[in-house]
């Protein structure tokens, strides 16, 4: 993947190892959701946990001990409300400690809050949170890489809901117009907004066709199939190619915890001790079911 000097991991993980890491990421998410009293965007964190795992433990060429290396891949979290999932995935990759996140999350002077801030947390590539901003930022970074003749990639992760923002399509046109083959947009296609299911009020389909019509290389996968995520990352076109890639990952909001799955009540929330135990049991059960 690319010709950069950084390796994704010392030894590339197997799909089975990545699945274990995704389980651990979900467990850590639930633990934080069970100990922090305020709301955590747990639904959208769980839907994107496999994507974050595939990125931070497989696809992204980054080095936690050298966060400013110009050859690193860039990752812009467009769906900023999934910041917790990103923080924990980064912690598991060695950027910072999980304990530091869970002990201080949302508290005064903590670097870890609901939406990521680069100024407060170096290692995060961009300050985001307001929806529809990540793709334009990633386009700028990809243009910059092109201008410098560098061969790293720029990744972003959007929620499908936020692609209702006009700025997303403005940037989609700019990416195609500027032939940014070094740009990769993941879409967490969980088909759920905060207050509705997305085809109910806002019709996004035919969704892959829309991206294709905007000139993008479209990859459509099951976003909870780690093998498919790995294959999508392995199959990315060369960074000097001329079509940006969108990986539309079909996901389930709340994935892995049965009472949260496809449940509008769990867009964001907080688990008490009892519910944390119930959620952990559900997560375990779901893992056993899937490994059968």
């Amino acid at each position, binding site marked *: 993947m690319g010709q950069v000097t950084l390796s994704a991991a010392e030894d590339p993980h197997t799909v089975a190892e990545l699945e274990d890491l995704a389980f651990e990421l979900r467990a850590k998410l639930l633990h934080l959701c069970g100990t922090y009293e305020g709301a955590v965007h747990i639904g959208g964190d769980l839907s994107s946990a496999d994507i974050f795992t595939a990125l931070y433990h497989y696809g992204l060429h980054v080095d936690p001990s050298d966060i400013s290396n110009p050859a690193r891949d860039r990752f812009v979290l467009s769906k900023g409300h999934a910041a917790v999932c990103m923080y924990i995935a980064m912690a598991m990759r060695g950027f910072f400690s999980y304990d530091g996140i869970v002990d201080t999350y949302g508290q005064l002077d903590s670097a870890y809050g609901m939406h990521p801030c680069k100024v407060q947390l170096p290692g995060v590539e961009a*300050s985001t949170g307001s929806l529809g901003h990540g793709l334009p930022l990633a386009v*700028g970074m990809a243009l910059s890489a092109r201008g410098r003749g560098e061969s790293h990639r720029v990744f972003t992760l959007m929620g499908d809901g936020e692609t209702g923002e006009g700025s997303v399509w403005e940037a989609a046109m*700019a990416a195609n117009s500027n032939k940014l083959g070094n740009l990769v947009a993941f879409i967490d296609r969980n088909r759920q907004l905060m207050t509705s299911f997305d085809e109910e009020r806002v019709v996004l389909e035919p969704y892959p066709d829309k991206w294709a019509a905007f000139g993008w290389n479209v990859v459509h996968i099951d976003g909870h199939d780690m093998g498919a995520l790995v294959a999508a990352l392995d199959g990315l076109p060369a960074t000097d190619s001329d079509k940006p890639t969108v990986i539309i990952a079909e996901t389930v909001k709340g994935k892995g915890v049965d009472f949260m799955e496809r449940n509008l009540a769990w867009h964001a929330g907080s688990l008490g001790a009892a519910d944390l135990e119930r959620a952990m049991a559900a997560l375990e059960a779901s893992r056993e079911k899937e490994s059968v």
Partner: protein
Amino acid sequence: MPETFTFGEMLSARSVIGTTLAELGETNENLWVLTPDIGATLVEFRDKYPDRFVDVGLAEQACVGIAAGLAYDGNIPVVSGMLPFLSMRALEQVRSDVCYPNLPVKIIGTHGGLVGNGGSTHYAVEDLALMCALTNMTVTSIGDPLMVGEIIRQSMDMQGPIYIRLAVGKKDKVLYEPGQHEIRIGKGIIAREGTDATIFTHGTVVAQALDAAEELAQDGHSVRVVDMFTLKPIDEELIARCAEETGGRFVILEDHLAYGGLASRVADVVADRGIHLTAFERLGIPQVYAGFGDDEELRDKHGYGLAATLAATRRVIAHA
């Protein structure tokens, strides 16, 4: 070259943007220029550095976001376009993508004030209030076309974002001989000395303030004109000095809403520092959508033209 122009001549501020950026592109290899389809005066830069020129078409929000992405990667992006759209349609991108992480994005644009006869969709009259409200943003409004080049040059070394407002930018009167004044972002210019009152102003109406001061001089009045081209951070010391040296008599003249722009910035300094004033009058656009007409007609109609400036200045001077 711009240096050949002298006081009173007309010059296109837009072409100064183009020539300055083309010149700066040579020494600043990380200078990028972006525009939402307002790139006619940027062709020199585009032709010299096609790989660092991006025209996104009609997409102001993406334009500002893309500029922020470039700045995150160590570049110096300049976004050039029409200010009504860069300051309002892309306001959230300016705030969240540029100002929040304090990136060195320069926003340079035209159509500040009631210029161009485009009607109210095309007048930037709230822009300075909006930009001054943004943390980390430096806000300027330039009347002298030769200054445009100087301000762009100075802004290259700035860490954070800057907003550079021009009028229509096609035919602007040269107000200052090159080298006549020290021009420094954050410091006002005493465009004309005087002791009876100070007219604080910026942008396209500096020329009108100078005309008013000249006419008042015929009646024996000594009126100071301050070109407060940086609204943020504002030159507080100069405001305090003017209060002392011109009898605490202030007129604020601006091509912007009368509330929220320079007058409000000056009033804040006066209140915060406990400066004693004898008289304070603000001349600007009232709360109306202004309609059509040329610049001068609109200023007259809405009460901040030359006649209104003369009347207001006479009133403050008459104040004991």
